[in-house]
């Protein structure tokens, strides 16, 4: 039913998307700026190296340094005007997005995550929200274009492909487990998204570092010099993924409990259950990889991305094309 509330929700969502698009451009400008900063930084570093060489030649000091000399500051200009603008606009987009989501829930008189359209809308909202939240603790603004870009693509697919009018909940979904299970899944997906984005950057950074270590000049993607190093990126990705994994564990358990209420068995290898399990196992593998010799670094980074690919597959492909008891896409087949 096209209620006025639902129409307003769509309007807000489209406006939020427009803002995200602008934020995307702002973040991209920031990346472009970083590129030129990195060049300056490389020049500055070369200068530092020249002076230290001169000093040691002249001094012939006796002091034994226990720690390495402090690295030159990674970030030359801390201002990042473009990135700040990006963050501001993303916040504004988030507010509209939140409004759209709430209105959809009010229009349907239930939680706004009962079909794929709503799931996408709430899921992307959580992604943006977590990204903004993370910014208060770590400077992840370099992820701005990945995050806003991804959210835009997902929302685009949702509004074009998954849009369904407000409709009542079928009896199988009338359960508070819908609220718990699906919301925890959405939240977990949000953390996995952020973690995956960090891992993606980590993998690119690692290529650059390997090139540098091999003495080859890393001329491509100089802006990476302004990003944290692979080790730090890996730690950030891990920390975020850990939260995602805990939430996913709850998703799995809550799903099993719900299945037990609704279908009389807690586990039946239904397609959706299978994929939830696969995702859980891949991320368990990822946590192991971090503690296994030979799998640190790129290995674990790739596993994180594979896990995220499974998350996207589970949502985008399994819901729409696979048959199973979890037929809740709201799309008629």
């Amino acid at each position, binding site marked *: 039913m096209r209620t006025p509330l639902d129409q307003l929700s769509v309007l807000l969502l489209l406006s939020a998307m427009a803002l995200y698009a602008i934020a995307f451009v702002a973040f991209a400008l920031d990346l472009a700026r970083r590129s030129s900063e990195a060049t300056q930084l490389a020049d500055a570093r070369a200068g530092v190296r020249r002076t230290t060489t001169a000093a040691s030649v002249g001094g012939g000091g006796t002091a034994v340094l226990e720690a390495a000399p402090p690295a030159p500051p990674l970030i030359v200009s801390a201002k990042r005007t473009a990135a700040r603008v990006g963050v501001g606009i993303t916040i504004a987009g988030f507010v509209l997005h939140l409004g759209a989501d709430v209105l959809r829930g009010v229009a349907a008189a239930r939680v706004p995550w009962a079909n794929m359209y709503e799931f996408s809308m709430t899921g992307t909202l959580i992604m943006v929200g977590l990204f903004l939240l993370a910014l208060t603790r770590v400077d992840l603004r370099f992820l701005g274009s990945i995050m806003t870009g991804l959210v835009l693509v997902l929302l685009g697919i949702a509004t074009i492909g998954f849009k369904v009018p407000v409709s*009542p909940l*079928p009896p199988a979904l009338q359960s508070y487990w819908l609220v718990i299970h699906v919301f925890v899944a959405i939240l977990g997906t949000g953390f996995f998204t952020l973690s995956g984005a960090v891992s993606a950057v980590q993998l690119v950074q690692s290529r650059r570092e390997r090139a540098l270590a091999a003495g080859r000049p890393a001329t491509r993607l100089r802006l990476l010099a302004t990003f944290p190093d692979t080790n730090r990126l890996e730690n950030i990705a891990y920390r975020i993924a850990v939260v995602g994994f805990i939430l996913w564990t709850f998703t799995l*358990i809550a799903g099993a409990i719900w299945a037990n*209420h609704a279908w009389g068995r807690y586990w039946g290898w239904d397609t959706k259950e*299978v994929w939830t399990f696969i995702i859980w196992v891949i991320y368990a593998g990822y946590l192991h990889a971090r*503690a296994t010799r030979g799998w640190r670094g790129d290995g674990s980074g790739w596993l994180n991305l594979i896990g995220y690919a499974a998350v996207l597959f589970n949502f985008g492909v*399994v819901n729409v094309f696979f048959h199973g008891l979890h037929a809740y896409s709201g799309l008629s087949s």
Partner: protein
Amino acid sequence: MSRPSDFADDGFGDLRGDGPQNPRLGALEWLRWAWRQLTSMRTALLLLLALAVAAVPGSLIPQNSADPNGVINWKASNPGLVGVANALQLFDVYTSAWFSAIYLLLFISLVGCVVPRIAYHLKALRAAPPRTPSRLGRLPAYRSESSPGDPARALDAGERLLRRRRYRVARYGDSLSAERGYLRETGNLLFHAGLVGVLVSVFVGSGFTYTGQRVTVEGETFVNNQSNYDSLSTGRFFTDSTLQPYSLRLDSLTVKYEQQNPAALGEPLDYTARVTTRTPGHEPVHRIIKVNDPLEIGGSAVYLLGNGYAPHITVRNANGSIAFSGSVPFRPQDSNMTSLGVVKAEHTTSQARQIGLVGFLYPTVGKLSTGADTSIFPSLGDPLVSFNVWAGDLGLNGGATQNVYVLDTSRMKQVAARTLANKPIQLTRAQPTATLPDGLGTVHLDGIARYAALDIHHDPSQGWVAGFVVLTVAGLLTSLLVPRRRMWLKVTDDLDGGLRLEYAALARGDDPGLERAVGEFAHEHRRELEAPTPSAERVPAGV
């Protein structure tokens, strides 16, 4: 062996630098070597990934357990692949030999990994923290300060502070070595051991379960014994006495459909089954079963998983005797409850003239543009039952159980159908009776009731599984969220006659708060030293 030999960690390795293995050819060494491979971190990781990959095909190809009809359709549309698929057990992936092999190996690896770690951890729990490293400056978190004062007092103050932060402290000469967060490893072990518990209870528990289906028409009573189930699958340890005595009468099944929202017209909003249950020695009880709300009775749970219409049909022979009379469950075919059903009238005057009726129920009938009947709403607005008629031998005497939804027409002849001179017979509320062709008799639609498809499950292991899941989650949370740290304080004489205080820390695994913990410890320690008397204020634990 404490942790797997290829366990890598940021922090304090309990690593045994075994180095490259050089297995001599003795059988024992080989076994040991193989065991070490199986319980290594890499193997665990690869087995986990293998498990993830192996689970995929079961989601691509329909499974006998979850979707038997899908299997039949798949076989029909891929006849060439059926042989391969059967050979690879692709219709039973999750019980297949290869899937089981992977999880059994993982299970063995898990046990082989966890048991020695538990033994090691128990020892570590009682041991004193290790000696202070000689060069604290090498550690990931380090801070050095100078202060006037007395070394013994500085060490005392440090020990007090660390103990207050729930570190276990040992004094080695001029230094303190402290450790906290043993709970992290405890949690990790609890998590892995909990997984073993979950798997074992699922496996053992499956022997005691049973799952049965029963289609019950309004007014009918189901009695809980084996012959009353339409289908019943049981675990290894099932006996007749597993079924506790009770009966359940379906008084009514009400279904509400959306009537207003045009986007969802006819979508079901609610199913409510009212039942009366009787157990020996008790008064009958009226209960309600809903979709997400099963009925607990006799150690089992009764679920409402499906519904449909069951027209009550009476077929009379030409001489007026009753050939069949009863409720016939029809199977829903679409969202408007167009339903397909079969009536088998066997008590005819001669076996060669038994009657089979195959046809559709349209709860609210409408016409397609082709002229064919269809249902336009799922509730009984204006029902029509339309039957093709077959005459001949129903084949019920063969003894083989027959599918009630299928008519075996091999020894029958169609006598009424759209394509024949005799058109299908049609029964409505206004015209509930029709005459069969060839003088076979009459058919009467007595009424239409609903039926509930009930699933009855008994799984005594659920409590165990749930208990182990709770332990597993508790273990996971502590293991991932409790930091495990070592902290050191070294007090040496400064060149200027004061004290040099060195603080250092090391974490197991990833620990974002390590630097801060050292900073805070150093800060508190300095304050304590500068204060005239040792302060007695409490420092919040867990920093």
